[in-house]
């Protein structure tokens, strides 16, 4: 009887440990979004007046990168322009020597991982104890996010000899992670939120 009770307790405990719930699967796409902003503490934003923005969005997928201009990308770029203008900056073309330059990128990284499930399939039954072949499986996680960066063009370091010309310092960057990143209905809210928590950018 003690043996049967011990089996019962052991199987209940195993069942309890294998139950895993996801406490955040009830979050809507907008609620699941996380905005991470950072800025260079030594940058004085009040010295900047004009800005420009790249004419396409950089797309980074694992190690490959390119540019794109889908209608989603256009919406994002347009919304960034609106927000910067609301902060007091003047929009100029790229060749008109802006003080700061903005870029937007869509980054997707796919990771492959191997895991194993120690409780898989081969229960030997109540009396034989359990013998299990742990089953190994490969799973893929994809992580994607938007990255908006503000580069200091005015104080660019033009003395270094680099193949791509001047070196720009990133004085502000924002990452938008979570769900619904490709939903055009959320673009305005997403970009606004990233700027909303960066009140130090304002030059008004």
């Amino acid at each position, binding site marked *: 009887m003690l043996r049967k009770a011990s089996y019962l*307790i052991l199987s209940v405990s195993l069942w309890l440990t294998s139950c895993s719930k996801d406490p955040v699967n009830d*979050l809507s796409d907008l*609620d*699941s979004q996380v905005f991470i902003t950072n800025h260079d503490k030594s940058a004085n934003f009040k010295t900047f007046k004009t800005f420009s923005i790249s004419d396409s969005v950089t797309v980074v997928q694992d190690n490959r990168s390119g540019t794109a201009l889908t209608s989603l990308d256009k919406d994002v770029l347009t919304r960034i322009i609106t927000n910067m203008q609301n902060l007091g900056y003047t929009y100029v073309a790229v060749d008109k020597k802006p003080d700061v330059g903005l870029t937007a990128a869509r980054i997707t990284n796919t990771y492959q991982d191997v895991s194993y499930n120690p409780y898989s399939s081969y229960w030997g039954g109540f009396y034989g104890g359990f013998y299990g072949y742990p089953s190994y499986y490969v799973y893929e996680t994809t992580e994607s996010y938007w990255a908006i960066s503000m580069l200091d063009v005015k104080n660019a370091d033009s003395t270094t000899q680099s193949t791509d010309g001047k070196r720009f310092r990133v004085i502000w960057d924002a990452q938008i992670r*979570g769900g619904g990143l490709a939903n055009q209905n959320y673009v305005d809210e997403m970009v606004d939120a990233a700027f909303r*928590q960066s009140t130090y950018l304002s030059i008004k």
Partner: protein
Amino acid sequence: MKKLIIAAFLLAGLLPAFAQEQAPKLYTLPSPYDRYTHYQVTARYTGAIPAGSFSSNYIDKASFENYSIALEWVFQNSFSVGGEIGYSFFKKRLPRATYQQTDGSEISAIQTRTLTQYPIQAFVNYQFAPKNASIQPYVQLSAGASVLDYTVYYGILADQQQKVRPTYGIGVGSKFLFKKDGNFGADIRVKYQGTSYDYDYIDKGISSINGSVGLFYRWW
């Protein structure tokens, strides 16, 4: 002569009756639960209320997702010892807020705070009533360890730590037998449980007051 024989038969019939009344009663021994040590298994459903700095710093919302199962060896004196394995889950969701990080960045997110705990403890009970009373109050001391899973979600991004930490508890409760000398009963217990733990929002350990109802089965 015939009358004598009939009388003798009658007396013969009556004598065993007399003999039985004076012999000791054979079927009133004490119950096996008093005579032998016996085992008991208890399954519980618990409501847990966070207490102390755990409540003020991390999660202050009560949890009704706690279960446990215990196996106990009851002695003939008033003590019993046993082991209990449990599961408890605390969760709290905060509205969107901005959090300053140590590297200077700001994170705006909806934070979901969770704590999953599997306490595995040994306990000692002291019973105040005999084994076949219909109400048997007891006090309990327990100690062991918990497997902890501390996870804070920012949106769907998680900051997680899993650790094993010491756990202790002190409780008071009562068993209720359904039937005199029976096998089944109910059990109600109020217990203070603490786990020492220090990470992120939790700096002075996890403490909660748990009230549980359970069913037990005993056998010898």
